[in-house]
């Protein structure tokens, strides 16, 4: 049901520009207005999100320690998993953000004959996520080829690396394949694994399908539809130099691609996709485990009703006296 709703939503999103961009007059809407709105929404939305998080205090230092603390000098501190200083935190975060360290740790509860529970590694989620996120990033960077007048030198280099397998014509980019593969795995997991099917919401299927839509329209344009790349570049350059023009010869499928990207940008700050920014702020990961060494300040440390020693002694003085215990007041 939830899957079905998401699918319909994405199909509608593809349908709108396919039909709409053929209607004269609406091209400007799909080619210029919506992309501008989308970029604006994304930038403002994400900034607001991150600023909001950043504004909220972190009352306690609640690092999740995944390794040996720093204590006695002869005990090896695991500064990556239980960092005691900023450098440690930096590397821990780097591992987390760039290589998804925690997902790498993922185990699967399983049983072997015997029966013994074993907790074997489960790297599928990690591999698929990594493939997806990295490919997405590389593909995004590759797109600068059409965003910028002067193509920076590293982009052709990146492209030749990406296409080094030299398969097909146009040469197949590995990241295109990896992106789709990653997305497929992430999507299938949600359908095949009963646990995941159970926890998945519309908000989980929808972005996956949306990105699959983006990828498929992109792949179609590059490998099959063969859009007029010159016109597209003219168009994007116009868009980015705030002098939008819509040259002739841009196919509807390009507008579909553009529209889906716009939808993603708008959806981004409203959804779980904000994890892209949130990961940097997670208090269990981005703080060092040096609690006993450096005092952490809680800006709203509350005043609470305490029970003082004096009150306590007042209540129990007699019995304490009888038990010969030392007293403040006789």
């Amino acid at each position, binding site marked *: 049901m939830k899957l079905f709703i998401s699918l319909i939503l994405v199909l509608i999103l593809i349908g709108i520009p396919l039909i709409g961009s053929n209607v004269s007059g609406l091209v400007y809407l799909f080619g210029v207005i919506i992309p501008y709105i989308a970029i604006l929404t994304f930038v403002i939305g994400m900034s607001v999100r991150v600023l909001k998080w950043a504004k909220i205090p972190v009352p306690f230092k609640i690092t999740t320690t995944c390794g040996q603390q720093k204590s006695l000098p002869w005990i090896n501190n695991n500064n990556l998993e239980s960092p005691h200083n900023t450098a440690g935190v930096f590397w821990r975060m780097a591992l987390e953000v760039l290589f998804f360290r925690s997902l790498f740790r993922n185990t699967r509860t399983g*049983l072997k*004959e015997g029966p013994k529970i074993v907790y074997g590694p489960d790297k599928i989620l990690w591999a698929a996520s990594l493939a997806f996120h990295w490919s997405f990033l590389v593909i995004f960077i590759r797109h600068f080829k059409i965003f910028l007048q002067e193509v920076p030198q590293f982009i052709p280099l990146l492209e030749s690396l990406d296409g080094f397998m030299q398969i097909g014509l146009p040469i197949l980019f590995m990241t295109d394949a990896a992106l789709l593969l990653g997305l497929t795995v992430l999507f299938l997991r949600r359908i095949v*694994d*009963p646990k995941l099917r159970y926890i998945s919401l519309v908000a989980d299927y929808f972005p996956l399908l949306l990105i699959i839509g983006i990828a498929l329209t992109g792949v179609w344009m590059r490998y099959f539809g063969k859009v007029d790349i010159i016109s597209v570049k003219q168009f994007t350059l116009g868009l980015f130099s705030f002098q939008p023009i819509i040259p002739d010869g841009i196919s509807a499928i390009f507008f579909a691609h553009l529209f889906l990207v716009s939808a993603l940008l708008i959806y981004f700050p409203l959804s779980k996709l904000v994890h892209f920014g949130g990961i940097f702020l997670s208090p269990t990961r981005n703080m060092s485990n040096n609690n006993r060494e450096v005092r952490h300040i809680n800006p709203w440390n509350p005043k609470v009703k305490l029970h003082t020693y004096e009150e306590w002694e007042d209540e129990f003085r007699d019995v304490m006296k009888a038990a010969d215990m030392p007293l403040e007041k006789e």
Partner: protein
Amino acid sequence: MKLIEKLRAEKAGIIEDWQKLIFNSYLEDGSIFFKSQQNKFQNPVGHTISNRLVTIFERLLESSDMDLIRTDLDDIIHIRSVQDFSPSEAIGFTLGLKGIIRSRLSSFLKNKSEFDELTAFENRIDHLSLLAFDLYVGCREKIYEIKANEVKRKYFKLLDRSGFIDPERADGK
């Protein structure tokens, strides 16, 4: 014993029905997980139950000696005794085997001799149920014994000092 041979032939189907029956006794959503066995989601509960049912059924076919079944059945009963079941629900799966066999072998059960054989086999299932009952009660008794021990442990020194714990058994057990 033609029936035993027939049951052997039908083993896979019968066990499958039997496993289904026991998993269906779990919270609807929970049973999805216990049931999905083929490396999708495995778990101590689901695995113990699936595996032990196979062994139990095989042993039932071989002999009426319940001692051979005791440990396997106990593993299942241990788990079910701490889950959300009334006693009859916890051990009812043993009797459920009868219905499964009758429906699986309906075409085979035609005349009296076959029914006689079936009755004999169902006797074994009755014994299985009685054993399950014993084991279940044993588990529940154990639970209350453990609970009592837990309280004693908590106030071990207090009881000790008050003379409630015999010095001969100073470990409080």
